[in-house]
């Protein structure tokens, strides 16, 4: 199978540029071809050389280049809310760009100032896919956005939101400072601790001890604060988390260290404990970082507001951002545009695709007086709509609210580590009490207390607390490299328990767009049938027209003729005259002067990898069910083709029905893409949104796949099971080390020196076990790739 020159997607039916006579550069879609041409036209073809030589950073998807209006970006009210002045007093806006995936993208975006005169500086943050663009004094952001769109990066302006955006940056920096200080503290303390272990003379040992205390102070009182915080929160909620025994050891360590300092005993556990703080903070930082890459729910807020909208003023239409729409406004929505608010049509008739809202794949015809809903797509003709409900009050706004409350209702799971923490803490406390009592009978109270405290310190569950974040980080980064973006780490544990998979049909198992299924030529017409299609459907934006045009091109339609008396009747078809013959395309037939020349049927095709994924899931003892808002016959055809049995099909499901079906299955994984799935997604045990999902389902889902289709679903379950195996093994290993320290403490063999050996050794063992374990993940993922 060949790959698209632009986006590297596997191609079913390649298309070629007119100039590319030898068919050397295949493309998967017109979008990619258009972008390729734009890039070449601007002399930027170095893009493809860089792409070839660079590692793909994220998988990218076929480009959709819908022409869009961006002039609303020049409105003063918009500029005030979305832009700011940088230090050079240049107006600056941040865009989230869809489709950033490798080094070449970076090159292209940062070259903007060279081929677009509006731009002063362009910088891209690859991790977040956010471009910061400053324009010249007379530069317009609408031009910038148009150019980005032409290059295949759909731009979404980001609101300059001080509260969330900058807050996260501050948090990140604070965490980094804590880690740095803990690292520096631990390193320096180690230097003096080693001298003491090596047998420094008493007077020097005392000085070294004082120095270590000084270095340890910021570590315990600044760097380690997150542990005290979470431990305290857990205690307040009357639960125990793994942070409770950690905080306990740290506090005991500090108390003992100071007590020894005052009594002149040069013994403390600061070297082991500070190193522990450093390692733990580091492992959590990486886990956080990998989860916060990509977009947070907050960032996604702006997405569904869509793009610009034309509002009727006294004499003309003015482009505004949908955010500024009010009830009573009259707006104009062109063909293939999303309707931005609920309302009534005041003039015009058209076809509406509401598949994102309801799951119904057949377009619905509407005319003056019909109600339309935001989130649906106007397919054929321009219509005027009087706005009745905006934002939160609209139907999609309500779904959005339900999604949010669904999130809140979802009970967080207590992960394995924290489940164990309960028993662990109890065991440690009991053991130290036993040790205290035992020593009390055999010596002084002072020595007994000392020994009990030591036990508390050395049984600090560092390896245990370290193992889980480390394993999860590795898994999440592996997964995201394969295009599976997992939004939070708890999902991994839930994934490993999934026993039922619910698949949405449209856009998930299928391509989500019509394609020609059968095409029979009955009789030769005066001109080629495909030329008839190309000529007549040229002006139509109806999905049937799109499917036919694509088919005609692949069948070698060479030219389009001039059409006289062209007419398009919404819901019926198109007709027109070519060279004295009257042609019609309607009801799945093509007519020449009233005589049928060809039949065709259209179908939303199943993705080629869907069937394999379904059978793979079944082999893993996972039930696969299809849940769709579409009609019974369509669902049955597709589901049977995918290998799903009849009793597992759920057609004609409204969003509410989907939700209740999902709720009946406690360990369910839901895969979906539309707003109609969003409620079900937000309440299912684990939810996955696939590429091309409407932004609402993106917010609702735990996992986002950057490649279309369900091929990755079996992988997800497999890697989660593997990850859980590694986590459990790590927990057992670290428990074993803790048994060793308990034994040493009871035998009276424990000292700062033995602690300094046992603690790091246990951490390193867990680290190695993690590395080996997650190495297996790679094998799973790459084995799958070869099989495909």
């Amino acid at each position, binding site marked *: 199978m060949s790959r698209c020159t632009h986006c590297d997607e596997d191609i079913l039916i390649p298309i070629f540029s007119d100039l590319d006579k030898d068919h050397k550069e295949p493309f998967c879609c017109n979008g990619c071809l258009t972008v390729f041409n734009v890039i070449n036209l601007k002399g930027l073809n*170095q893009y493809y050389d*860089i792409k070839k*030589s*660079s590692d793909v*950073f994220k998988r990218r998807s076929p480009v959709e280049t819908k022409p869009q209006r961006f002039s609303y970006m020049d409105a003063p009210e918009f500029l005030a809310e979305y832009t700011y002045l*940088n*230090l*050079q007093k240049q107006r*600056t806006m941040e865009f989230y760009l869809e489709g950033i995936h490798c*080094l070449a993208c*970076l*090159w292209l975006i*940062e070259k903007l100032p*060279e081929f677009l005169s509006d731009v002063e*500086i362009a*910088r*891209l*943050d*690859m*991790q*977040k896919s956010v471009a*910061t663009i*400053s324009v010249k004094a007379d530069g317009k952001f609408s031009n910038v956005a148009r150019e980005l769109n032409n290059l295949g990066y759909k731009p979404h302006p980001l609101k300059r939101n001080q509260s969330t955006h900058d807050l996260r*940056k501050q948090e*990140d*920096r604070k965490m*980094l*400072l804590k880690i*740095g*200080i803990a690292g*520096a503290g631990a*390193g*320096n303390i180690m*230097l003096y601790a080693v001298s003491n272990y090596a047998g420094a003379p008493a007077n*020097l040992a005392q*000085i070294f001890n004082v*120095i270590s205390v000084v*270095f340890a102070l910021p570590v315990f009182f600044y760097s380690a604060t997150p542990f005290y915080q979470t431990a305290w929160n857990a205690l307040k909620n009357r639960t125990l988390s793994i942070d409770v025994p950690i905080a306990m050891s740290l506090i005991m360590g500090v108390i003992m260290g100071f007590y020894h300092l005052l009594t002149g005993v040069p013994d403390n556990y600061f070297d082991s404990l500070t190193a522990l703080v450093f390692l733990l903070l580091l492992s959590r930082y990486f886990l956080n970082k990998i989860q916060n890459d990509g977009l947070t729910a907050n960032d996604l807020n702006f997405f569904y507001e869509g793009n610009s909208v034309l509002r009727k003023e006294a004499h003309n239409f003015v482009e505004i951002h949908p955010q500024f729409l009010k009830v009573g406004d009259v707006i104009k929505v062109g063909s293939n545009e999303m309707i931005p608010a609920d309302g009534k049509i005041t003039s015009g008739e058209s076809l509406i695709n509401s598949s994102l809202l309801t799951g119904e794949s057949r377009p619905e015809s509407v005319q003056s007086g019909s109600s339309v809903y935001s989130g649906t797509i106007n397919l054929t003709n321009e219509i005027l709509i009087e706005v009745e409900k905006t934002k939160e009050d609209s139907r999609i706004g309500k779904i959005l609210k339900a999604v949010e409350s669904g999130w809140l209702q979802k009970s967080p799971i207590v992960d394995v580590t924290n489940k164990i923490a309960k028993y662990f803490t109890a065991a440690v406390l009991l053991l130290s009490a036993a040790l205290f009592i035992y020593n009390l009978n055999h010596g002084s109270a002072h020595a007994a207390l000392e020994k009990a405290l030591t036990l508390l310190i050395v049984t600090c569950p560092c390896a245990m607390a370290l193992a889980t974040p480390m394993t999860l980080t590795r898994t999440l980064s592996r997964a995201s490299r394969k295009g599976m973006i997992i939004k939070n780490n708890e999902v991994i544990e839930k994934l490993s328990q999934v026993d039922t998979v619910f698949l949405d049909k449209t856009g998930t198992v299928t391509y989500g767009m019509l394609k020609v299924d059968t095409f029979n030529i009955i009789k030769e017409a005066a001109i080629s049938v495909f030329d008839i299609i190309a000529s007549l459907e040229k002006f139509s934006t109806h999905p049937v027209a799109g499917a036919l045009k694509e088919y005609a091109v692949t069948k070698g339609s060479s030219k389009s003729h001039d059409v006289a008396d062209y007419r398009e009747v919404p819901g019926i078809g198109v007709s027109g005259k070519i060279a004295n013959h009257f042609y019609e395309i309607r009801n799945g037939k093509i007519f020449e002067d009233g005589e049928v020349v060809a039949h065709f049927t259209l179908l939303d095709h199943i993705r080629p990898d869907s069937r394999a994924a379904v059978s793979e899931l079944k082999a893993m003892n996972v039930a696969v069910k299809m849940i769709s808002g579409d009609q019974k016959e369509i669902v049955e055809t597709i589901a049977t083709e995918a290998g799903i049995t009849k009793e597992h099909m759920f057609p004609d499901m409204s969003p509410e029905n989907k939700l209740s079906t999902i709720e009946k299955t406690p360990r369910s994984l839901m895969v979906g893409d539309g707003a109609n799935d969003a409620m079900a997604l937000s309440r299912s045990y684990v939810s996955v949104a696939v590429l091309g999902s409407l932004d609402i389902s993106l917010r609702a889902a735990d996992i986002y796949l950057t490649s279309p289709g369900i091929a990755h679903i079996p992988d997800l379950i497999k890697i989660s099971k593997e990850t859980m195996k590694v986590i459990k093994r790590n927990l057992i290993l670290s428990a074993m080390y803790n048994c060793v320290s308990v034994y040493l403490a009871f035998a009276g063999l424990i000292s700062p020196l033995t602690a300094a050996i046992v603690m790091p050794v246990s951490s390193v063992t867990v680290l190695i076990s993690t590395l080996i374990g997650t190495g297996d993940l790679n094998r799973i993922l790459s084995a799958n790739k070869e099989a495909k």
Partner: protein
Amino acid sequence: MEVLPIVIPLAILLALSFIAGFIWMTVRGQYDDLETPAMRMLLEQEEMKNNESDKLDPKKDMISNKERK
């Protein structure tokens, strides 16, 4: 052993100066984006290889760092 009274304060001073440097850089935002600069560096090199005259102006880097603050 006589050197210790000089070396130890020096070592501490050195450590403190590194910590101070780290704090300064973190607060200035040098560690905010660790991925892109690494890639950007590769690009500039590639452009030099291709003998392109219009390689990125180093001043722009400085501006963007300030701007990032």
